[in-house]
């Protein structure tokens, strides 16, 4: 078993659960400066709580799996709480330890959410 490219990461990369756009939702986007990949996230918020979240864009396995898992996690959370999340929580979720370069890929989703 590959340490970094674990089943959960490759599976989420190939079969993302949260891909798409929420019409009428709040949106934010950001590009990964290393490769130019763009990521857009739309969320549906009711009474300050995130009811649904989806993403659109391309990227490496780490960034795509990272955002897909992150969106699972934030459903039901308050936006204010999400904005307080740290990158290390994403690594924990993914079950991997990343090099500095790949942290930028993995944290991209959170950076976008913080712009909401």
């Amino acid at each position, binding site marked *: 078993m590959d340490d970094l*490219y674990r089943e959960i990461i490759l599976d989420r990369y190939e079969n993302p659960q949260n891909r798409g756009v929420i019409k009428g939702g709040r949106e934010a986007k950001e590009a990964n400066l*290393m490769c*130019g990949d763009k990521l857009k996230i739309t969320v549906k918020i009711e009474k300050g709580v995130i009811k649904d979240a989806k993403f659109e864009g391309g*990227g490496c396995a780490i960034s795509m799996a990272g955002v897909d898992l992150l969106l699972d996690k934030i459903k039901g959370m308050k936006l204010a709480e999400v904005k307080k999340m740290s990158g290390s929580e994403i690594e924990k979720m993914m079950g991997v330890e990343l090099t500095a370069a790949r942290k930028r890929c993995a944290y991209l989703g959170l950076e976008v959410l913080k712009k909401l």
Partner: protein
Amino acid sequence: MRIKREFEVFGKNKNLSYLDSGASCLKPKSVVKKLLEYYREYPVNIHRGVYEMSSKASEEYEKSREMVAEFIGAKEKEEIVFTAGTTEGINMVARGMEKRFKKGDEVLVTELEHHSNLVPWQELVRRKGGKIKYIKIDKKFKLNISDLDKLVSKKTKFLALTQVSNVVGSVNDIEKIVSIVKKINPEILVVVDGAQAVGHMGVDVQKLGVDFYAFSGHKMYGPVGVGVLYGKKKLLEEMEPSTFGGGMISEVGREVSAWARVPEKFEAGSRAIAEVVAMQEAVAFLKKKGFCWEIERELIKRLSVRLGEIEEVRVFSALESGILSFTVLGVHSHDVAEILSRRGVAVRSGHHCAQVLHKVMGVESSVRVSLGIYNEEKDVDKVVEGVKEALKIFKK
């Protein structure tokens, strides 16, 4: 490989296959030694010190200028301006020569350009009101030189182009291009990005016929933080400085000041003295070892053939120098680079500061292999093995 002994970094990283020289070449021991020589023996400021140590530092600094001038075939050493790197040099020209650019004028660039030789021109055009035009590339990543007749006119004030593409390795025939465009418009100024050329092939700015030629120290086995802008003396005299302050003046009054002569007027403030001094050793290293572009090109051809045998791989290279980029279907370039990294293979992934070119290539990002004097067959072969491994991981 004998040459590796001259690079300290291989001592602790015996398994390293460094294929990222396009981003920065490794630095030989002689360059590092010279850097330290400054800090150990004459670590003081240059020019206006009368004491012996300062005069030694000044001498070493100016010796670098002489050696670089001779190295690239400049007519005189005053034509060599020390900068922070290629990007700064090109920005200095785009700013300093903007008087020549009137509303409605044009800058001609190519689809191969690194952002450093594109964005400064976009800014010039935005400031003054004008147009950017592109020399397109063909399927083999070669410039369509036959379009020059249509693209160049009296309105074209600058032609900004690279000598060697940092993504697909095309080697542009600068001499020929200069002669064509100057025939149509003798006033056009040709600004060449030589970052990927000087460390790999002999450059003679007079033979090339260029007006300005910019490059970086660390892409020719020299220190990071120093670069060179060559300009024809008359043009440097015409060019306005864009950084003002100490060291670049002849006289300062309460309201206005007068500039020093070329090249001092472009070297304001305290400079990266150690780095400039160590450029001597980068030049000496290249002169002693000779240029290795033909060897690099042959290695790239080998890599291209082998990668070409893998169905999922698309190769982007003119196969004219030591640079090749590729994509792997189903595996993002970052993931390929990550998997290669575990085998000790250092490559770059992303758009390599050439997003316009990547649009033409039809991909967002790619993996780039760029060679240096320390590379051999086993380095490029490790890339092929790594790509196969990446496919295995992702195609389970």
